[in-house]
């Protein structure tokens, strides 16, 4: 199993009690799956995704990633693990405004101590693969929303992670751009990457193989999505 969560909970102190964001979440994700996490606002979707991405360490329970007990790792070990295997796509793109497209793509590699020569080659490949070579010297504020998200996806996959986590990747895009991004995710999944996305959109969810429903922090349902009918829509 690639990802296993057992009794994962997250809460905040609130007066004399606690407010729960996630409650006893149990979840298994296999390698190669394309999973969509859905639910209303405040259900805890993004929180769950950030826990999976190891950005958030204030939770309880058990989290196994590639059989590694994340809940028992120290921050440095978690950082090494997520750097090696996880790529993250943000709803707001979160590109670094003062770096060019090229530099935004390069930066995750420099944090992984990849040599300069290898970085140059990997960035060139990804620019070509995503067909954004002509935009490599532009800054994020010179790109459209769709182009920025494209760069965000490219940045997430440049180090060939096993898992790509995407938090509402098309939330700030119009439908044509959104479709382009989702097709990209599909092709990544076809290439072997495991994709976990948070989405409000049924259309986006239909690109995946499984849907997990969250409500008030609880996992209330899991279902298999109809991929063919979603593609037609």
């Amino acid at each position, binding site marked *: 199993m690639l990802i296993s969560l057992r009794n994962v909970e997250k809460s905040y102190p609130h007066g004399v009690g606690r407010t729960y964001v996630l409650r006893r979440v149990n979840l298994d994700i296999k390698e190669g799956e394309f999973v969509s996490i859905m639910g209303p606002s405040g259900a805890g979707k993004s929180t769950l995704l950030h826990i999976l991405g190891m950005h*958030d360490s204030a939770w309880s329970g058990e989290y196994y990633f590639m059989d590694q007990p994340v809940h028992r790792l120290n921050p440095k070990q978690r950082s090494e693990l997520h750097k090696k295997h996880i790529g993250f796509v943000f709803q707001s793109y979160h590109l670094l405004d003062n770096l060019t497209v090229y530099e935004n793509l390069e*930066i995750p590699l420099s*944090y992984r101590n990849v040599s300069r020569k290898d970085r140059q080659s990997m960035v060139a490949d990804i620019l070509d693969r995503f067909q954004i070579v002509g935009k490599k010297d532009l800054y994020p504020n010179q790109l459209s929303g769709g182009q920025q998200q494209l760069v965000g996806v490219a940045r997430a996959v440049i180090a060939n992670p096993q898992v790509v986590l995407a938090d509402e990747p098309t939330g700030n895009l119009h439908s044509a751009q959104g479709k382009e991004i989702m097709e990209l995710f599909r092709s990544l999944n076809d290439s072997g990457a495991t994709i976990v996305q948070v989405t409000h959109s049924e259309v986006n969810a239909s690109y995946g193989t499984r849907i997990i429903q969250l409500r008030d922090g609880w996992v209330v349902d899991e279902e298999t999505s109809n991929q063919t009918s979603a593609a037609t829509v």
Partner: protein
Amino acid sequence: MFSDLRHALRILRQAPGFTLLVVIVLAIGIGATTSIFSVVNGVLLKPLPFPDADRLIAIQSGLRGDHGGTASVPDITDMQAARTVRDVVGYTGGTAILTGHGEAKTLLTSFVTGDLMATLGVPLLLGRSFTADDVRIGAAPVAVISERLWTDRFGRQPSAVGSVATIEGQPVTIIGVAPDSFDFPIQAKRVEAWLPIATTQIGAQFAAVRGAHLMHTIARRQPDASIEQAAAELDAIGERLARDYPKSNAGRSIRVVPLQERIVGEHRTALTVLLAAVAGVLLIACANVANLLLARGIGRRREIAIRSALGAGRARIVRQLLMESVLLAVIAGGAGILLSQWGVAAIVAASPLDIPRLQGVRVDRTVLMFAALLSAATGIGFGIIPAFQVSRADAGETLKGTTGGIDVRSARTRQLLVAGEVALSLVLLVGAGLLGRTLLNLERVEVGFVAERALAMEISLPDTRYPSPEARIAFQRRTVDALGAIPGVRSAAATSTLPLSGNDMGIGFRIEGRAVRDEDRGNAAYHAISSDYFATMGIRLLRGRVFTERDDEHGRGVIVISDTMARTYWPNEDPLGKRITVSYGNTGSREVIGIVADVKESAVSEPSRAEMYTPFAQTPWPFFTVVVRAEHDPAPLAAALRSTITRLDPEQPPGDVQTLGYFVREATAQPRFTATLAAAFALLATVLAGLGIYGVLAYGVAQRRREIGIRMALGARAADVRALVVGQAVALSGIGVAIGVAAAIALTRVLASLLFGVSASDPLTFAGVCVLLMMVVAAAAYLPARRATRVDPLVALRAD
């Protein structure tokens, strides 16, 4: 690392206003610190410019507890027997008149007992220096001249060496030329000629007198002797001399210090205090910049969170942020070095003349290295806290967009930094306040004479043209009479040495009629004066009488003493009518005929010492200073003074004319310099601290807009909102003031040796500074408080 640097440059370029502000604040701090360090380095730290300078020692001889430092020529000859030192040589300053090579010129001269250049290890540019034969009594007069004099008066002709020049009216063979790089004794005006003291007429008399303690003495330690061993051996010699020559040497002992310490030691405390003060200013500047970075860091939380999410470890993020800080500091350091060039020039121009080695202060390699290290340390210093704070941003919450409002930890750090700035400002202000009060106290000290509307001019009579006492007395009388006849001059007089001119002369004396005891031997500041001296100088007669024209070379020996001398040596009896034998130039014993008020001789801050006055006609020295009291503004009389001397003797070059006020001001020049710089630094620090407080409050108001809007919507009035902001300011400054007062009480003790008339924990100064700082805080809080009252509740709440 290179990509971090590139990124840092880009970040700074994208925020030009912020970058410029930080660079200016830091450049001022680094520039000021580098300027003062240049002075400290050039004056205190740099070794003397002589080979093996650490082996050069100053031999200070004096009465126990007062090692003012001068010895007699016979004493120096005895010191030469010491085995732990070699090349013992004495020197004393004076002037000598050069004629025959252009216009008559008064040369600043050093009279020596031996080969000074050999002791210091400096080869001459041309010719040779003194041999043992050159320095004995009766030897043919010779001189070593400076390169500057050789250039100005001898056209840099090699034939100058071996030629004969007329110095003090007698033929003197020039035997060598000292290079311009040779500067000893180290003093404000450079020496132009070195002559053996034994070959001048007056010097030859001194050279034979055991009690004429006029020579400063230096030597070189033997390579295998420590300074302690040299001190012990020379002290033993001093004790033997005291036993063998009780009349002249009783109670005297010898102390040895490194020569560099002797030259610059008295300035060490003042310069170190100034360096600490300017470092305080730099610290406050760093705290201000740290605050700016912390505020800016809040806006960079998103960027830091993204980097963290992309795999950057905390160390990597800290490194990147520190790179920006160090880059800012390096840019500021470059600007600071440029500023320090100007700063050093300004300090040297404004400083008292008596700080030795100051004219040679430069921004040299050592100073540049210091500035470079200081810049790097500054960058790390102000960058480290913000880097650690900002890198701690919660990536998860930031990326989800669930962070907002006030970053409590950052706000607290900023408040602590500002409290620290207030504390440091208080320490600097207290220091400046104490030094300022010292200066005021010194300027209020009664110097004992009236400095207004009076001029003074030194005259040095050459032995050959004024060889006899009669000739000197006659010239002095003619001079005083002629000066007194100048229109606009109320009275004129003469004295062998002028008070506060730096030329004070101490001479021993013995009280007659008492058993010979140590306490009946004394040493007093000595003046040979004309009869109108006390009236012209405005020195009050307390009892008895002053000299008249009848107290001349034919009259009986008389003497006037000061009030301190009377009370010290005749505590329970009337000194009038008693007799004193003066150690030098004595024509028999002298009767005390008058007691005058004390006069400050060498330093305004020192207690009055014993002073004695004899009639010039009875003790005619070959040098004297004329003093004229003007009816009105004395400045126009300067030319008349000079022309009068030239008229009386065309071959006698007139000396520099100065007002008496100049000497009084110069006497407080050092404390004025220290107090002025300390005040400048304290003011700068306070302005920076005020800006720091303003920044924290202004930012706080911006952050609390929503809260202020809610309060106003709930009924808070403008006064309530102002109280909110001012309350925060008072809390910040209150903590800072409390810490600052405690620190100031502890730290101002180091100023004790620089203070006069005020204690290091003076409550009035502390209270005044606290009030001043609270006023600064109030001023800093005014604008943010006003801005807070203008928050529109509806706008503030709608923005939520």
